[in-house]
């Protein structure tokens, strides 16, 4: 019995929880991407850098708060600073929309032109963030890091293996669930949400129904920028903040959004977990788990070496798309 429990704990500690954490982090990022994708109909390459921008502001405010001696008990102070970070990111997003994307909207440009414009924005944000906070890793996490550490878990249960649960991860998962529920409700049920979907479906007809396109766009950016900041801050709390890493996150985030089905909030969540778990489960060496279950494998029982983790997540992705050509949740074809 102990063997089984130990196997379970090992699996949970090294595969399930990390996958869950990473998946939730990707999912939050993908939600923002998928929203812009769904409503404004282009893939926003600046999303990673928008995440970095919002997080940067949050970090600066957090430092200031810390300097003032303010903290948030066991929770990270950054959560206090988050609203201001969100505000900053939203302001930035609206500013960008006003001076970049609006023009193309009026021109009725092709989707691809929007994408390229977002690449331009990405470069600019890239520069701005580095100009202000530099390219280095920044730490801003305080408060408790663990809900339970490996050692505490072992002492508590008397098992040979331990299980660590990190507070930022717990927060991320809770937030991800709340956000997706809210977003889903908002888009499917609320009047504004429906107006947004209508706008994304057929701009002209939306106009004919009296929907104000500027408002739809504004709301979209507000939500997307908020999501970006939340995702960025939670990610930074759990791992660390480095502009370059945030930019690199773009790829798995896009993968998540697309494999889940473009424009589908639930898909973004599912996609995040598919990507995360395919990375973790397929490259994990199952030797220890099997040993606890009473087998004695000679090798590491690793399906694929970790070099291929990124590649394997894409293999899974391609496979998913071959079975469901428009993503897990039947996204749109633009």
């Amino acid at each position, binding site marked *: 019995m102990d063997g089984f429990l130990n196997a379970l704990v090992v699996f949970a500690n090294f595969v399930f929880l990390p996958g869950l954490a990473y998946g939730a982090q990707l999912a939050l990022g993908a939600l923002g991407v998928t929203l812009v994708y769904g409503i404004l109909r282009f893939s926003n390459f600046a999303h990673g850098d928008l995440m970095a921008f919002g997080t940067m502001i949050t970090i600066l405010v957090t430092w200031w708060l810390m300097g003032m001696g303010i903290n948030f008990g066991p929770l990270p102070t950054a959560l206090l600073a988050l609203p201001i970070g969100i505000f900053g990111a939203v302001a930035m997003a609206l500013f960008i929309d006003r001076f970049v994307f609006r023009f193309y909207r009026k021109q009725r440009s092709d989707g691809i032109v929007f994408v390229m414009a977002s690449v331009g924005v990405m470069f600019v944000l890239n520069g701005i963030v580095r100009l202000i906070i530099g390219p280095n890793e920044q730490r801003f996490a305080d408060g408790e890091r663990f809900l339970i550490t490996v050692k505490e878990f072992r002492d508590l249960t008397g098992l040979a293996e331990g299980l660590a649960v990190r507070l930022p991860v717990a927060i991320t998962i809770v937030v991800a669930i709340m956000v997706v529920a809210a977003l889903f409700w908002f888009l499917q049920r609320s009047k504004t949400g*429906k107006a947004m*979907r*209508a706008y994304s*479906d*057929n701009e002209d*007809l*939306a106009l*004919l*129904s*009296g929907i104000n396109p500027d408002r739809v766009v504004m709301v979209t950016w507000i939500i997307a920028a908020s999501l970006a900041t939340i995702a960025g801050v939670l990610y930074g709390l759990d791992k660390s903040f480095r502009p370059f890493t945030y930019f690199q996150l773009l790829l798995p985030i896009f993968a998540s959004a697309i494999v889940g089905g473009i424009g589908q909030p639930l898909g973004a969540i599912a996609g995040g977990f598919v990507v995360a778990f395919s990375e973790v489960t397929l490259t994990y060496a199952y030797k220890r788990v099997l040993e606890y279950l009473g087998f004695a494998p000679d090798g590491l029982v690793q399906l694929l070496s970790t070099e291929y983790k990124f590649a394997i997540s894409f293999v899974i992705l391609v496979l998913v798309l071959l079975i469901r050509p428009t993503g897990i949740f039947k996204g749109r074809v633009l």
Partner: protein
Amino acid sequence: MSFLIGETMRGGYGGADILNGCTIAVDKGEIAVIVGPNGAGKSTAMKAIFGMLPLREGRVTLAGQDITALSPQDRVKAGMGFVPQTSNVFVSMSVQENLEMGAYIRHDDFSDTMEQVFDLFPILKEKRRQPAGELSGGQRQQVAVGRALMTRPSLLMLDEPTAGVSPIVMDELFDRIIEVAATGIAILMVEQNARQALNIADRGYVLVQGSNRFTDTGEALLANPEVRATFLGG
């Protein structure tokens, strides 16, 4: 002075003008029908009246107010409803949501109106949960008209509402349009089922190359042999 007047409208899509000084007017409680060959500029005229095309010349007035400068959304708020000829439904949204979007600017309870639309087009009630993109061509057309009716406009503009609908539904539709007009709403429509349409029309316009060729009552146009032969298919 009619309720809606599009006066000596001139304009196009950038190249040569499509509208060459045509004038369209309709009064409350009246049905006006525009007919004409393909590419005559009928849809363009509708768009111009709705503010979706910049006018180089001419003006549009609604209830005596000059609305030439108003944006389409503001025209919706001013009581105009429009069913375009093509892409006139939200394909990814369900039938019911399409109708709800029609009522977007209404803040009252619009469930009666929706019931009325469902009465008019019973098939839509059956398909209320289905995405409009999966409907048959005629069903889509019904959704499009239904959506416009949901606004409860004081002026309803229909660009070929009966294209692709079955005879029985077409009759229903015309019946309903007559009823709607009887409640004091102005109706402006473009039709290729011209004989049926002129039959119920108070006014008819024959548009050719962006200008008025004939303007008369529906009956008179129907009786005119030249119009019949050249534009109504004999």
